[in-house]
């Protein structure tokens, strides 16, 4: 049996090899055989990561590629470092990839002869990039894996090249993400100029020899650029709804479920390992800046989510809202905050992937993802409707879903820093969950009146989508509802099974340990952890807040669907207020999402400049 360190490179190597095999096999084997091979490959990867997760325990697995180990604190070798949070995220990636492969067994029309393996091969390549990013302990490798998953994601977004909209979305996605990645590479270059190291831990240790100056702050902002763009923090988020609106549904499941979350993970991983020590960026400055950014992201995402009628855009903005909550929680830097965010992300991955999968059922049946156009047309898809409602409730934070547990733990931790923060969690969950419930009520149950088409000049309707399947007569493949159901069950298990919370709690403590990470990479004895293990149990307040946000979501959805009677003065007042807010606040915000490449690049630049000024003022 090989040692755990020897197994660590395999989660990157296995899907890479699988992608190569599938491209070849797709030319020779029939489609069913290719799909079975791809699914088996994904299952192998999942089993491998389960083994690594079990073996890693509370420590870290360090693997030096090619035996180029560290000497006297200096290294030129490439290091992979797996702790439970990184391995766990890679495990989440592999589970979702396996689910998506099963989901898309019968999803696309028959691929062109001789290219049956292209789509699963791209998915495995995507998986390799994401797993590599979760496991790397080297800044430059992080850039390479980031670009690997990026390039595959651009290709997957524009997979249906016969439709102009996916091409447009993929191009915007590609340009904005790659520009941010090059900014990060500049930042890595600056860090190398200061320290002569590329490993995260080694760079962090070498920074200690110098006081924090303009170079370190500039390098930090530049390195963070790609992470914040990937995690879709405002104002770096513009690419995300465009890409999600047009990507094939199975790809949306992966992008919203794990890819965006990898950006959140990268933000924290790089801060904690590189910049958290002396000579880096002070914790207070990081916390203040990222918390403001997170709150802004959460509010923008939630407000924009409520405005959407294009179902995929709606779900995409809800992801942005939740990313804001995670960034806000993680910015507080304590193990309990990290544990809450980790649980929240795990639960959210299942729920959001399930919701996208069910949207795919609608697209498959009706060739539309428009909430207005689909009014009442989903009545015959009972199972999909029930699952969609369950997904909306889980998104709103209904206990005992994993999202609710993550939200409860994060709220509890955030309330210790500022008492009003849980209100933000409740508001964002209620708005995003409410928007999903509203869509479910209209589409699957035909509730309320037929919504009047708005004549707004800033709207993506989502009707007249290219159906991703060409044969409307056939029944919806069973896998397309079975996989979302299983994903929702998974999200439920995260909340119900206490083992998950406990494991993530201890993983969060290890994740935040700057000194221990460095010691493990250098092969010296790590100082014992003194921080307490965060509690990840259900609390009464957490359950009540979860129920509160779910109830709010239900009320919001009901108000939107069955508009309250005009005769009540309160309803009239609320409507006038809503109309004013719509005109003065929401419309300008929607106009900013212009779909124009130049605008998005401008916002990226403005955002980086603002971050630079904010951090420079605090150091």
């Amino acid at each position, binding site marked *: 049996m090989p040692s755990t360190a020897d197994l660590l490179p395999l989660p990157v190597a296995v899907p890479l090899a699988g992608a190569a095999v599938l491209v070849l096999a797709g030319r020779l084997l029939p489609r069913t055989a290719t799909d079975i091979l791809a699914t088996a490959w994904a299952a192998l990867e999942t089993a491998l990561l389960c083994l690594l997760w079990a073996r890693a325990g509370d420590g870290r697995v360090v693997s030096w590629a090619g035996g180029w180990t560290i000497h006297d604190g200096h290294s*030129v070798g490439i290091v992979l470092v797996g702790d439970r949070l990184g391995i766990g995220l890679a495990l989440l990636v592999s589970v979702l990839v396996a689910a998506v492969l099963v989901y898309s067994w019968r999803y696309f029309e028959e691929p062109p002869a001789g290219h049956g393996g292209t789509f699963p091969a791209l998915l495995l390549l995507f998986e390799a990039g994401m797993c590599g990013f979760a496991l790397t302990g080297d800044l*430059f490798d992080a850039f*390479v894996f980031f*670009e690997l998953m*990026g*390039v595959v994601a*651009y*290709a997957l977004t*524009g997979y249906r*090249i*016969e*439709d*102009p*909209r996916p*091409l*447009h*979305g*993929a*191009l*915007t996605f*590609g*340009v904005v993400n*790659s*520009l941010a990645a*090059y*900014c990060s*590479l*500049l930042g890595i*270059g*600056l860090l*190398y*100029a200061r320290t002569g190291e*590329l490993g995260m831990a080694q760079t962090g240790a070498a920074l200690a020899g110098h006081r924090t100056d303009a170079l370190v702050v500039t390098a930090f902002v530049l390195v963070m650029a790609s992470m914040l763009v990937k995690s879709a923090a405002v104002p770096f988020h513009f690419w995300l*709804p*465009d890409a999600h*609106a*047009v990507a094939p549904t199975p790809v949306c499941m992966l992008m919203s479920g794990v890819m965006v979350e990898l950006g959140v993970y990268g933000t924290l991983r790089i801060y904690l390992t590189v910049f958290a020590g002396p000579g880096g960026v002070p914790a207070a400055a990081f916390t203040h800046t990222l918390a403001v950014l997170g709150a802004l992201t959460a509010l923008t995402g939630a407000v924009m989510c409520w*405005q*959407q009628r294009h179902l995929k855009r709606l779900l995409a903005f809800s992801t942005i809202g939740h990313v804001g909550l995670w960034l806000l929680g993680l910015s507080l830097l304590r193990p309990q905050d990290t544990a809450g965010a980790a649980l929240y992300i795990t639960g959210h991955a299942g729920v959001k992937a399930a919701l996208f999968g069910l949207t795919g059922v609608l697209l498959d049946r009706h060739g539309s993802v428009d909430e207005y156009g689909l009014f009442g047309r989903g009545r015959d898809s009972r199972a999909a409707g029930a699952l969609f409602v369950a997904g909306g409730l889980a998104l709103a934070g209904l206990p005992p879903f994993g999202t609710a547990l993550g939200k409860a733990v994060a709220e509890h931790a955030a309330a210790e820093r500022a008492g009003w923060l849980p209100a933000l969690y409740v508001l964002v969950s209620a708005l995003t969950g409410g928007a999903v419930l509203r869509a479910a009520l209209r589409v699957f149950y035909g509730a309320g009146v037929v919504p009047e088409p708005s004549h*707004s000049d*800033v*709207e*993506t309707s989502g009707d007249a989508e290219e159906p991703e399947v060409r044969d409307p007569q056939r029944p919806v493949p069973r896998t397309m509802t079975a996989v979302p159901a299983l994903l929702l069950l998974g999200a439920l298990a995260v909340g119900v099974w206490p083992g998950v919370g406990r494991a993530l709690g201890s993983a969060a403590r290890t994740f935040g340990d700057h000194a221990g990470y460095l010691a493990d990479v250098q092969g010296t004895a790590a100082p014992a952890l003194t921080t307490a293990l965060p509690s990840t149990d259900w609390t009464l307040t957490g359950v009540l807040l979860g129920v509160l946000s779910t109830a709010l979501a239900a009320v919001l959805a009901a108000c939107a669907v069955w508009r309250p009677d005009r005769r009540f003065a309160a309803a009239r007042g609320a409507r006038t207020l809503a109309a004013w807010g719509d005109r003065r606040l929401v419309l300008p915000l*929607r*106009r900013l*999402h*212009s*779909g*124009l*490449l*130049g605008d998005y*690049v*401008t916002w990226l*630049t403005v955002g980086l400049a603002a971050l630079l000024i904010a951090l420079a003022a605090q150091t």
Partner: protein
Amino acid sequence: MSILPFLAAGWILLAGIYGMVTSRNLVHAVGCLAVAQSSTYVLLLGVGFRRGGTAPVFSDIPTRTPVVDPVVQALVLTDIVVGTTVTALLLSLVIQIRKRTGTVDPEDLTELRG
């Protein structure tokens, strides 16, 4: 070490970004992305430069000869490969956009908004 390579890299990055922001042609925009990327080459090579150093190839020079940093050169090579992939993929998307919509002006692509 001189500050000039840093300033040059910053200037090239800003020139590339300016081009992308004002571009009215997608081929030009992708080209500007490549320009922005070339700032990373300048910065990395500037970081590894050593006055009087020669190329880090020890086949025909004594091992004590001062050489420039080989690590950044490996980084730049990887960077070039990554950049080529990205540019090629984006340009192929532009070709498809031209085929489907008949335009390469980003201002004409207004399907996704709000």
